């Protein structure tokens, strides 16, 4: 003990940008956020699973779901994960042009998915499933709506990224910013796979 008393750091000047875990602060924060999001969707999905069969009025799930249509839009969303990967790899090569290209395509695919969802909601509404029609309606629109909002926020982030990259206004590490948005985007995709399986594919 005596030997170590009054010791002082010799490399303390370089401590701040080397993180203790080796993972950058931003990336660690994004992982934590996504962990938290898991429970958000967990709660919403549980609510839906509890209530999907409770239809006192209005249509039953299997009466209105259009599986082929939703499969196509799910496929579109899955493809956007692929283009997102391409955007990240372009960003890591410091290839701004291709980064922007792939980001834009990702955003467009995402927008197609959201468009499909809007169409689907409209169709369901016409077939008599309103937000307040039944427990199934309330929980279905809440769950898929929350997911849709997440996709929309992702699209806004992608477009903002494109704008900032083309004007060279990204604060900090450009490739990492793209990667962070990518993490979020993949997460939203994975959540959709779970929702699609549980809500549409498994019969109630």
């Amino acid at each position, binding site marked *: *003990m*005596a030997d*170590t*008393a*009054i*010791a*002082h*750091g*010799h*490399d*303390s*000047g*370089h*401590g*701040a*940008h080397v*993180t*203790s*875990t080796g*993972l950058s*602060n*931003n990336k*660690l*924060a994004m992982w*934590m*956020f996504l*962990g*938290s*999001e*898991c*429970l*958000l969707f*967990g*709660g*919403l999905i549980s*609510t839906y699973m*509890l*209530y999907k069969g*409770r239809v*006192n009025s209005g249509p039953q799930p299997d009466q209105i779901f259009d599986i082929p249509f939703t499969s196509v839009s799910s496929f579109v969303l899955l493809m956007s994960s692929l283009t997102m990967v391409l955007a990240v790899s372009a960003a890591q090569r410091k290839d701004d042009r291709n980064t922007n290209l792939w980001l834009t395509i990702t955003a467009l695919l995402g927008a197609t998915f959201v468009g499909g969802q809007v169409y689907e909601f409209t169709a369901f509404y016409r077939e008599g499933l309103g*937000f*307040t029609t*039944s*427990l199934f*309606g*309330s*929980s279905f629109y*809440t769950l898929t709506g*929350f997911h849709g909002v997440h996709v929309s926020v992702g699209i806004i982030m992608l477009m*903002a990224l494109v704008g*900032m990259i083309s004007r060279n*206004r990204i*604060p*900090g*590490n450009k490739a990492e*910013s793209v990667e962070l948005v990518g993490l979020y985007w993949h997460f939203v995709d994975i959540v959709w796979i779970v929702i699609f399986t549980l809500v549409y594919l498994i019969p109630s």
Partner: protein
Amino acid sequence: MAIIERPSSEVAIAGGSTVGVKPSEALGVFKRPAASTSWRDWIVTVDHKKLGIMYGVAAFFFFIVGGLEAVLIRMQLIAPNGKVLNADQYNQMFTMHATTMVFLFVMPMAAAFANYFVPLQIGARDVAFPRINAFGFWCFLFGGIFLNTAWFLGGAADGGWFMYAPNSSTLFSPSHGIDFWSMGLQITGIASLTGAINLIVTILNMRAPGMKMMRMPIFTWMVLVVQFLLLFAIPVITVALFLLTFQRSFDATFFDVASGADPLLWQHLFWIFGHPEVYILILPSFGIVSEILPVFSKKPLFGYPIVAMSGAAIGFVGWGVWAHHMFASGLGPVSVTVFSMATMAIAVPTGVKIVNWVMTMWGGKLQFTVPMLFSIALVVQFTIGGLSGVTHAVAPSDTQQTDTYYIVAHFHYVLFGGAIFGLFAGFYYWWPKMFRKQLSESLGRWNFWLMVVGMNMTFGPMHMLGLQGQPRRMSVWTEARAGEGFFNLGFWNRISSIGSLVLSLGVLLFIINVVYTHKSKKVAIAPLDPWDGRTLEWMTDSPPKEHNFDTIPTINNLDEFFHRKYAQDATTHEITQVATAEEVLAEMNAHPDEHIHMPSRSYWPILLALALPIIGYGLIYNRVILAVGVAMVVATMFGWAMEPSTAADDDFDPPAPGDGGGHTKELAPLG
């Protein structure tokens, strides 16, 4: 000294002279705020210490509000058929008392300590995301104010803090109180969630060289566990609150029994959040006393790894016990058994902590300072609360006790006798670090004893009341159910109500102590290391400079500071002091780090946070206001995203001298 703090308007440079530095227009709409002294600085600051103090002041304000609500409740119950409040007011009062104490006092007060001391304890210069930190504070403050404006806009929430469905629907609670409640908690939830992510990243990523996880001070450990609990608990209550808001504002059917809804859904969601929440409230205080007991026992914490791990175990098992709040709600016997056993299991790591605290004192050299007194009281009172907790972990016994005053006694022993006593211990312990002056010990002793007597007088009799059948949440009690004899329930209700006044007097004495300490000229500046501390936060100035440490220390030991001050003789094993705190500090500061870039102040956090209650009012009253709020959120988020965390070198005019920019470090590139 080549310490550069930017973008303060005065920058110390080599030779000690100062040069005024004006920031140029930042990348956003606003000029980069640069004031460092006026009140404006408190609006735009991102300094974790200032935010910690702001958290503390705001939380203490809400403590007084919640305390007054509690006193009104006790005055109503001092006699049968009380007339102080009517039933409606009473229901609002106990709802808001609990909501305020849980969400607006204990949680943010723990956040105050965590904000201020975690970076200091791990040898960091700030948290990972200073602007998000500021945003979190403003969310909490505006959320809390928003929640309380309901009092003036038709009545506060009246469904109890647990807000069980379907009593929370507009049919049964037509005022806007519950709308304010759910949206206000949503806003403070954002504060907790962002704060959790921020502190987790800070603790995992920004420890000083050599500070392994198992060298972290125990307070930091407990804060880490709490942040993980928040990270996973907050989204669950978020879902519940969304369902409630959708039900009340948009006629969704989630809790509408006529549509086939199951009211127990709310209870499950609420308690999956609500039980971890209990540990969110108590663990920071466990951390505080685990710092204080060793300091005033002159011994390291007994079984440090076990205390740290038992904290983590409590956090983990805490997820599997939520339904013990629902033993009477009609779960089947199998579920009841499982949750009953899990609840008993959680008593083990909790008991381990108590044993370790007692063993820390055992064989020590105890100094009964005020923080030590509060800590010992916590150990004793928490033990009482813990043991009564075991009696209702036993599910059949709980069916007699739940929703009676016995439960009220239990959780006040845990949360007042435990959590709040821990926070007061923290006030007295860390006051000299934060404000350079030590709170008066003699006034502190009065403060302590009044609070101990008041607390036990108020909540002790509630054990009797509950076991003899007085239910909770009743605006009146009747003599017909109070029993006979001198010590009937009326007697204990009176004692309890008088106790609440004693307790209030104790808290008042704390406020008087603060005023006295800072106004009286007789109170001298505290020494650098008034308690002979053991951890890193004492190894810097009081209060610390904006960048905390001139040199980031390298850590070789648990209780690093103690080991720099004391040495053990190899043969006699005698422990002697080899250096004073001043000497340790001087030694460290002999070679200060160069080019310290501190994160720059920003307007965006407060503006973004301000938009949230506007959205809340909009949802309740007017869609135009709602649109304004949403537009404000979008605009401020863009402004935020465009603004770098640390102002770039060319953002200053003239450029900071002697700074080539090549060696600069950014603490938080995005945050």
